[in-house]
Structure formats: structure tokens, C-alpha cells
């Protein structure tokens, strides 16, 4: 496998939620959410009731991937911040811990300057959390060594078949 799977534990998940909900309040934003670079949503906070967060996550990752491609074409490593300005709402996208995308949606109640400032602070905190997650995953794998038992080792063919039994 190319990269280790992302595994999210309860403790870090709660820390992430705390950081992004604080960011939402500090930045006066409507929505803050985190997506991994493959398009999987990690966490979301704010006015998300009427928002299709799954599609948002996938399109954000596509957007970042395409922009990364553009960056490399002109000899840049990446564009670390993307900003989309709309008539009412704006989207601020930045990369955290090299592998996670932080998205902030805000309107006229906030400003680009404020969002950038608060995102910078939150990014530092999120970096720490993700570093902890990665070292935890590695530690657990190393501790288990060759005997690493997948929590899904007990999935049977019947379990899988039953998923499709409509």
C-alpha cells in the first residue's frame, strides 16, 4: 500500500472538532471543515444542515489536486492557499500537515484577512494533532508487529454479501 491508512481515534477526533469549532467562532465563519487529500471528509463544524458536505469534500480534494498539478507544471511545490470569492460566500482552502485540507466558508460577516490570521493559528494546532495521530498509528503497528490483527479480520464473505442483499 502506498501510504498508511488514515485511522481516526476518538480522542484526536474530539481535539480536531474542538480546534475547528474554535476556528469557526474566531474567524466568524459559516462553516469550517477538514478533508483528506483523497476527498474523504474528516470533520465539519457550523451551518452544515443544508450543505452537501460529501460532494463538497470530493470537489475540494479535486480542486486541490488540480491546483497541485498546476503548481508543479510551473515549478512550484504547491499553492498552499486557495481562495474563491463569490457574491455572498467565499471559500478559503489551505493545506495542513501536508495531507489534510482545511476549508473555511465565510460571508460578509468576516473578512479574508481575519480568516487568514485565524487559519494560521488553527493550522499549527491541527499540525500537532495530526502528528500525534500518525505517530500513534505507527506505534500501534510497531507494537503489534507481524502479529498485527486487523479489526476487520473477522469480516466474512457472508457479511459482505449481506451488504448487497437488497
Amino acid at each position, binding site marked *: 500500500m502506498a501510504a498508511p*491508512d488514515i485511522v481516526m*481515534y476518538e480522542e484526536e477526533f474530539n481535539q480536531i472538532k474542538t480546534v475547528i469549532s474554535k476556528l469557526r467562532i474566531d474567524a466568524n465563519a459559516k462553516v469550517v471543515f477538514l478533508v*483528506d487529500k483523497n476527498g474523504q471528509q*474528516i470533520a465539519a463544524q457550523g451551518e452544515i444542515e443544508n450543505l452537501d458536505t460529501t460532494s463538497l469534500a*470530493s470537489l475540494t480534494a479535486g480542486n486541490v*489536486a488540480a491546483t497541485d498539478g498546476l503548481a508543479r507544471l510551473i515549478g512550484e511545490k504547491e499553492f498552499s492557499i486557495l481562495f474563491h470569492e463569490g457574491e455572498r460566500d467565499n471559500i478559503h482552502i489551505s493545506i495542513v500537515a501536508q495531507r489534510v485540507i482545511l476549508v473555511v466558508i465565510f460571508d460578509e460577516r468576516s473578512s479574508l484577512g481575519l480568516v487568514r490570521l485565524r487559519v494560521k493559528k488553527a493550522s499549527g494546532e491541527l499540525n500537532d494533532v495530526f502528528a500525534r495521530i500518525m505517530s500513534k498509528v505507527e506505534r500501534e503497528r510497531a507494537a503489534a508487529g507481524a502479529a498485527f490483527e486487523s479489526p476487520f479480520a473477522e469480516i466474512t464473505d457472508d457479511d*459482505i454479501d449481506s451488504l448487497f442483499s437488497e
Partner: protein
Amino acid sequence: MTFINYASREINCKIVYYGPGLCGKTTNLQWIYDKTNPNAKGKLISLATETDRTLFFDFLPLELGTVRGFKTRFHLYTVPGQVFYDASRKLILKGVDGVIFVADSQNERMDANSESIDNLQINLKAQGYDLMAIPYILQLNKRDLPNVATVDEMAKLLRRKGEPVVEAVASKGTGVFETLKGVAKLVLQELTKTG
């Protein structure tokens, strides 16, 4: 790269439909979208040109149900099949858990099929994957057309590693769910090995 969330007890997997232009990747997704219970699916997103050719990708999130207490979510993506969209194709393979290769059964598309599989192998490698190791299914689409190659001929030409081969007519739904189920099974079986 499966994303396992212990906090919300979810497994998220990414499946990519690959294949030459006009082989029916989007048609597969459209059929799945049309026939799936509304509670189990999200919106089908198509980033397509004005003539409905896939420009970047199609995306369909599916929720299949629960395995051992974990909700299983599958994110289905297609790539643009046309040769010159290679940069986009490469991006979409990022973090893939399983690949479905949709081959066009018409005789005149055999070269395009071979070329596309070679391209898949190269692009997987660029993302650090090996076609020989990844969950993979070969779908032979458009079996209802008059000018098609036989299954044996196609298997001989396109099969790379003894992967399951499914005959399909995506526009009528034949073989569509069978293909998806096949790859989902391989992906979940992979999970039981690697965690």
C-alpha cells in the same frame, strides 16, 4: 488508502472506474445512481463538457450498510477516458482502494482498451500502487452490440492477473451491480488483511 474512523465508526473506500473514452464509465455510475435507494446515495456529480464528455471526474457516494458495526461508505469516481486528459486521470487515482476497468467490447476499440490498461498501470505506479496488488475487476461492456470481440479474445488480450471478468451492458444495467459488488468485496477482503 481506506479511511477508518473509529470515532464515528465508518469505513470509507474509494473505487475508480477506468477505461478508454466512451467505454461506459459514466453510464455505469448513472445506472447505480438511478437504481439505488435515495437514502443510500448522495448526489451524482459530473464535471463534464457541454457535450457530456467527462472533463475531470464523476463522483457518487454510496452507503452500503454496516459490517461488524462499521458503516461502509464507497466513493465511486470515474476518470476522463480521452487520451489527452492524462494529467487529470493521474490525480483521480490518488488514494484509490479498488479499480474497475471498463473495456469497450467493440472490435475496433481493442487497441484503445489495451492502451488504456497500460496507461492505468503507469498512472497507478506514479501514485505508488501496483495493479498486480490492488483490488481490480475487468468489466467487458457493450456486450449487446453486433461487432463485439468474444469474451475469450478479450480476456486473453486484457486480463492482467486472473482478475474477475464481468460481462456487462451498462446502458441496460446488466452486470453493473455485479461489477461493483465484485470490487467492493475485494476491497473489504483487503481490509481484513491489512487493517
